[in-house]
């Protein structure tokens, strides 16, 4: 379902860290991500891939250059506006699941949708249940999030990221804490999301197998894109 519609675009992205010493983490990074694309960011530790992801996520605003999400320039927007953009258009999956431990799985999945407030409570509950079903967790829906296994928790986190049908799903080492079986499950889910539902996935990963399976891989080194071509990884 990959198309030529650009969902996310960066122009001349530059980022400095000032602590402990001034250090340029990103050097004029420019790339585009397309609708329905499963994109991975790879590189060695300190190459700037996570830094890039957090700039793209709109959570880190201390950068130079421009970022466009769905054609809209997000650079320079106020934090509350960015929060609204994240809520509606971006889903997040991290290495750690970051579920609210006191809430049931279902309620965890519902959180971003209740913040968005587009649907009624009942509808959100239904949608959350649907997402859990896609991820094979319908039986765990009412269990507290803390009672699940690591792989299940990560899948709940993915369901939460998908609840508002975001245009982009961002992952920071989403399989970093998972065994190979669960990694395979997450990989399949990502593939399905991007190819069947047309949502773009941008994931930072250390896992070369995971990167190989994606549509395109961007490799960073010393804050620069050194390779955008997937074939080099094969």
């Amino acid at each position: 379902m990959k198309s030529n519609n650009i969902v996310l675009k960066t122009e001349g992205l530059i980022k400095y860290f000032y602590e402990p010493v001034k250090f340029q983490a990103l050097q004029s990074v420019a790339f585009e991500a397309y609708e329905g694309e499963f994109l991975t960011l790879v590189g060695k530790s300190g190459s700037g891939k996570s830094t890039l992801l957090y700039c793209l996520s709109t959570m880190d605003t201390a950068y130079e250059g421009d970022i466009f999400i769905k054609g809209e320039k997000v650079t320079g927007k106020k934090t509350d506006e960015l929060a609204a953009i994240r809520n509606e258009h971006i889903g997040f999956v991290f290495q750690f699941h970051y579920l609210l431990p006191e809430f049931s799985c279902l309620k965890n999945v519902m959180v971003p949708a209740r913040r968005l407030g587009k649907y009624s409570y009942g509808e959100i509950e239904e949608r959350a249940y649907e997402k859990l079903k896609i991820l094979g967790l319908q039986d765990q829906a009412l269990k507290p999030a803390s009672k699940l296994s690591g792989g299940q928790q990560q899948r709940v986190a993915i369901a939460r990221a998908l609840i508002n049908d975001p245009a982009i799903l961002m992952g920071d080492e989403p399989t970093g804490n998972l065994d190979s079986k669960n990694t395979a499950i997450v990989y399949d889910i990502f593939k399905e999301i991007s190819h069947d539902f047309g949502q773009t996935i941008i994931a930072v990963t250390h896992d070369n197998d995971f990167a190989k399976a994606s549509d395109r891989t961007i490799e960073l080194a010393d804050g620069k894109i050194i390779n955008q071509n997937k074939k080099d990884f094969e």
Partner: protein
Amino acid sequence: MKNSINLDIALTHIFTRKKQTFVAAMGVTIGVGIYLFMNSLDSGFSKFSTGEVFKNNAHIKIYKSDEISQPFSLPTDDTNTLRVIINPQITTLSKKIINPEALLATVKSQPYVTNAIAQVNFDAFYNRGKAQVKGAGNGVNMIEYAQMFNTNKYMVAGKTEALQGNLNGIIIGSGISEKLNLGLNDNITVTSSFGVVKVLKIVGIFSTGSSMNDNSKSYVNISTAQQFMKEGPSFVTTLFINVPDAENTEPYVEKLQQLTSYTVEGWKTSNADVVSSNKTRESMMGAISMAILIVAGFGIYNILSSTIMQKINDIAILKATGFRGGDVVKIFVTEAFLMGIIGTSLGLLMGAILISIMSKVYMGGPVGYFPIRHELHLFLRSGFLGMFITLCAGYFPARKAAKTDPVEIFRK
């Protein structure tokens, strides 16, 4: 919808951490309870001591103040003029208020005057055989006087009405009655400082609990008192005036002063000691109880700060998924609010119980049971302060939580 998720999270934090919530709420409970109790104690006692003042003082009195002799010529810088050196002395010839009926009528016609009476004071000696007690006689219209000063409440024998129209009657303090061993309907010899001697019949005995009054004071009719002073029927020494608001007499004093050249004095001026001791007690109690309340606020601050430290990951993910800083503030201020509501209501209950217990404690003497009541305005003030301090204590950690940078958390 948007608010309900904030509330949902706040409630979850509150209910999954029952112990911490309870401890924080208990802090507020004790703070609010003690604050309410101490301020009620103070207010009750202040009311009591002010009431003591009004046993024999009106809100405002008008009397002729002593005059000091003045030099005939004004001081001047001109060295050529003759200097007169004088020795200032009291030159009051009489304490008499001239034309008291007209003044009393004018005063009574003022819309803000609820009650006004004339009084004639004289120094009296109560005799029985060789026994003598020194005291002060008050010539009054007893019915009006009793109305103003609640004298009926303190009557232990006879009635105040018995004095009305009875020029040979007298009402004496219980101390005089004991010392002279005189009872109701006995005769008492009263001598004034002007040398007038009269034998009067005791028609009533009062006991106010203040020995100063009970051992010296007596009431007679105005005309009897005038005879004791060898004065005519227009002789009056003092006018007593009551106004609607006893706590706030100053503006009325000013207005009355415009009507007369005699000295107009509010009870606060003549009883500055009572007023200042009330104020001192009020500030002490206020400071101590406020300190306790503020300590309770720090309890809330601590517990919320530790909740936020523990929930920093939750806050980060909430912010990542699109919760604004304001939402985070709302979540934690809601938690503080809920703790505050629980703590404050229990605190008001605790205060109410303490007040009820205290009001049944017998203090003895003229005080009787401790003068404390459930006063609505103190409940409102304690409740408001309890909530205000809780919300302040909740707001600062909440604002800190709202400033959490999620990237910093995720990159750890």
